[in-house]
């Protein structure tokens, strides 16, 4: 019975992760507008190309009449003429009315298949453009139709395709918290019983957790490069993560420095309890109350209905469970190695 259960959860974690990898990389991203060229509007009737990323919002044979692009300045809507449509871009012609509440224009693209795409501050009007051009206001925007997008990941400005990293970066840290918590409990038990069994559990947990912590740092660094433009920024959350990893590296250094001293188990347990308390403070308490770029901190929730739609959830939750189970599996292997070493050495 026990063997069956082991097969179930180990095989299950592999299957879940296979599902996560396939689904995470094959699912298309919903289309979203990224740029308008040129972004400076200078003359009347200027043509602008709006470009999108993600899955195509149009077929090549679609007619331009089916699409509509509206620019918004303050509460004024400016109608444009759609000239050309290609799978990832539209070409429009803009007439700027003489009076503008604001120089920045937001762009709305209404598509028959993908709904409404939005680009904030798409174009800017230069002063010279406010000449005697006939105004072209429209009364209201066409009602957006409910699009049939299929199974696709939500488009987020700036994050774009890198939203797939959510399936790697976040579960890494969840797995690390989980296994470090296990190590914390093991260390508490070690202090209570002074048994080598608990010490081996704690050591295996910390070693496994460190692997996931390093992977979390690496994936987070990649993500930061893409969204914030730097591999590392000095941010409470990031620094806290680095300090946590260094702290647990200190655990290994401490063990190495102790060698085969009899007190290594108890001292390591004391240090591990301390390290876990610091982990909770540094990663879960401090960044929430200081200014931080990281989602989920500084008072702004990271995972709410806005960021995490159902399609993403359908892959994210399996990812969390899969990585967690894999992490536990690695921990059991490490523990078995520790026990074998101990058994061989004590013989």
């Amino acid at each position, binding site marked *: 019975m026990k063997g069956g259960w082991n097969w179930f959860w180990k095989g299950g974690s592999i299957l879940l992760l296979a599902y996560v990898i396939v689904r995470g990389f094959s699912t298309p991203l919903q289309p979203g507008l990224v740029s308008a060229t040129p972004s400076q509007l200078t003359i009347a009737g200027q043509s602008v190309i709006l470009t999108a990323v993600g899955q195509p919002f149009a077929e090549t044979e679609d007619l331009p009449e089916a699409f509509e692009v509206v620019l918004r300045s303050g509460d004024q809507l400016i109608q444009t003429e759609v000239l050309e449509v290609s799978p990832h871009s539209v070409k429009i012609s803009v007439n700027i009315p003489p009076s503008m509440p604001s120089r920045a224009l937001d762009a709305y693209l209404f598509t028959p298949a993908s709904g409404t795409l939005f680009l904030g501050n798409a174009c800017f009007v230069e002063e010279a453009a406010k000449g005697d051009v006939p105004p072209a206001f429209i009364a209201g925007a066409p009602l957006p139709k409910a699009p049939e997008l299929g199974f696709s990941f939500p488009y987020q400005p700036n994050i774009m395709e890198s939203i797939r990293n959510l399936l790697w970066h976040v579960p890494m840290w969840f797995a690390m918290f989980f296994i470090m918590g296990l190590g914390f409990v093991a260390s508490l038990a070690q*202090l209570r019983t002074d048994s080598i069994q608990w010490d081996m559990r704690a050591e295996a947990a910390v070693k496994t957790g460190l692997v996931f912590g390093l992977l979390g740092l690496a994936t987070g660094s990649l993500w930061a490069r893409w969204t914030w433009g730097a591999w590392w920024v*000095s941010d*409470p959350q990031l*620094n*806290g993560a*680095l*300090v946590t990893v*260094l*702290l647990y590296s*200190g655990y290994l*250094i*401490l063990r190495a*420095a*102790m060698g085969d*001293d*009899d*007190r290594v188990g*108890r*001292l390591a*347990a*004391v*240090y591990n*309890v*301390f390290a876990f*308390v*610091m982990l909770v*403070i*540094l990663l879960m308490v*401090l960044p929430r*109350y*200081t200014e931080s770029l990281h989602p989920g901190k500084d008072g702004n929730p990271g995972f709410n209905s806005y960021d995490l739609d159902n399609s993403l959830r359908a892959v994210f939750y399996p990812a969390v469970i899969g990585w967690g189970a894999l992490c536990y599996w690695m921990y059991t292997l490490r523990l078995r190695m520790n026990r074998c070493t101990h058994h061989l050495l004590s013989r």
Partner: protein
Amino acid sequence: MLWLVHLFSGFTAIGRLFDRERSNVRRYLQWTASPLGLILGKLFHAVLTTTALTAVVLGAFLLFLGWPQGIESPGKPGLLVLGAWLGGLSMTTTLVFVSAVASQVRSGSGALAAVLGLPLLLPQLILATRLTRGALADEPWTMLVEYPLFLGALGAGTATIACILFPYIWRA
């Protein structure tokens, strides 16, 4: 502003040296004392040392460098002192714990204390410099009020953990 950072790092270096040598001497001197009393005594000693050091470092800072150039407003001198004191306090309590752990290792305990202590001091150093910079630049209270709270909480937290865990180290 950067002067403060430098001063603080020097400050922690002094604090670390002081504590390490003291802890070894005291360990042998107070062989018979109860562990809780011992750690409380060490922490109290750290508090006194930190207070004295804060006074010396801040006094020297203001004496030799004056109020930083280019800042017209008077800033928040009280908060500056409080930040320096609390920052130093949370750092020294952490160092007491780390050096207590490291002193149990037979060889190279000094180097070990430095290696283990460095990452732990990083967040406190960041918080403290952020706070003192804000105090010098006269930022509004609402932006700064959380920093002394955090430093105090970190110091109190590490002191509490040290008190709880120290008997386990000491029992050996």
